[in-house]
């Protein structure tokens, strides 16, 4: 039973990146960028999550099936957020007479 063993260097580099990104997201939060604040915050969080999944959780070296499971998880989470959100976002479209 051979499973890929990552070098320690990979783990330490990811750890470093995660710490730096944490600094970055905290620092950037103190600047007022309006709606862009949340976009930046979520983007940085997604990058951090991707590093954890790809390297720490070893998905880089797993089967296609496991990768499919990971993608499915995101997809289903997005269904919940998007399909619920579409209701709230479009609530006053009729009254307004236009979509934006």
């Amino acid at each position, binding site marked *: 039973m051979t499973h890929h063993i990552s070098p320690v260097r990979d783990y330490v580099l990811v750890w470093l990146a995660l710490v730096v990104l944490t600094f970055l997201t905290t620092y950037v939060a103190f600047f007022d960028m309006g709606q862009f604040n949340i976009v930046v915050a979520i983007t940085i969080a997604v990058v951090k999550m991707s590093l954890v999944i790809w390297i720490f959780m070893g998905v880089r070296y797993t089967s296609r*099936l496991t990768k499919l499971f990971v993608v*499915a998880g995101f997809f*289903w989470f997005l*269904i*919940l957020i998007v*399909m*619920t959100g*579409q*209701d*709230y976002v*479009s*609530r006053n*479209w*009729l009254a307004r007479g236009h979509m934006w």
Partner: protein
Amino acid sequence: MSTTLQTPELVERPNYLNEDYGWKSWLFTTDHKRIAILYLISISVFFLIGGIFAGLMRTELLTPAGDLFNSDTYNKLFTMHGVVMIFFFLIPSIPATLGNFLVPMMIGAKDLAFPRINLLSWYIYIIGGLFALSAAAMGGVDTGWTFYTPLSSTYSNTFVLTAATGVFISGFSSILTGLNFIVTIHKMRAPGMTWGRLPLFIWAHYATSLIQLLGTPVVAITIALLCLERVFHVGIFDPSVGGDPILFQHLFWFYSHPAVYIMILPGMGVISELVTCFSRKSIFGYEFIAASSIGIAVIGFLVWGHHMFVTGQSMYASMVFSFLSFLVAVPSAIKVFNWTATMYKGSVTFETPMLYAFGFIGLFTIGGLTGLFLSTMAVDVHVTDTYFVVAHFHYVMVGGMVMAYMGGLHFWWPKMFGRMYPEGWARFSALVVFLGFNLTFFPQFILGYLGMPRRYHAYAPEFQIFNVMSTAGATILGVGYTIPLIYFIWSLKYGKVAGNNPWNATGLEWTTTSPPPKFNFDKTPIVTEDAYNYSHRGEVEVG
């Protein structure tokens, strides 16, 4: 051939039933077949309890006035009927009984991937059930099984917390069963059992398991938030303190709509097995039926807003949900066409399982088509929250799933217990069920269209004739379900001894003894042909 199999010695061959005795060997078993039996007994008990609640409701509805129960009590009756039937009967039904028994066997495995988690699933289910029953015993819940807020979160004086906890706990049973099936089907297929050779029963259970895995956690957290609100009196779903009851409904129906596909897909899987065997023909359009099962599971997650057309949901979202609801009907229709095409130019015989299969196909079609009525927003505004909806979902859940369950029980009973049920009584009961069912629920379509609201214990006098028909039908239906209960139990001791393959059916489960040995197969099977290879088999031989 059949005479030599009547000897008692063959029944006493070592099998999963007699290899060990005593309550500990059952309550601490990890054998998927024994766990299936544990579930079979439990869900039958809950079916009886749910049926009693229904009987009480239908008795009240014989007369227009609310004379038997007051409205509060009636509210508790329909709530408990729904909670018990949905969460403790229908959702586990086929997967936990037939699925647990057959999934490993059909793929040539010795057990599920996680046998101890399988046992844990049953215990979790029982604990959840006990919570729900204590809520009933202490005085019941009156919110409807849908637990809509703010009635459930703020204003109801009934045992919402207890009942909701029971549902929350039993959800984990469902999740673990789904998880077990998915891993088993991916990782434990016998050599040669490729995805394209899997029985459609397996495809159906795979799709069901996807829903159980991905949908149930959302209703779990929704119920948890509901319980937090009830305990801490914070208005997370209560509009008078800034909460949003529509949010509750979005989160609730995100699971509860896909849940209805948990309550039909396994039945469809059974029907594929029955129609092929009793038409002596391979399934028409295997890939289409397999893909449709997955399609229903996926698209089923995108349509929940059709339960919310009149709640204040945006018109735009309602249109999206309506359109997708039309789309989800397509894979179901494909299956009905394919089952019909399978029977065309087949050698059809009418043993009991096939009678139930016919019943399923007709009644599910009616139920499914009326679902399209409800997905049409304009029609829904008229018939929502009326008996039209009640009739629709009973056609698919009872006329569909329960019929499939009965058909499957009859089909695999000889495999599970080594005994045949009495065919004469069984065919008679199938007809009684069919007649009773239609008499109960067809008038409800008319009632709903005429405007009788659901969840009311009193109604306008002009609706009485249809209500009386419905109650009469319910009585007949009850008889139709009681007779099998009696003869199934009778058959365990006195039924004709069954051989390995009394139906001369394809499928790995029929290659082993009836009842099967503890580890299913003496030697791991190697699969070399597609499912449903009936062309070289003769007729159905009941023996």
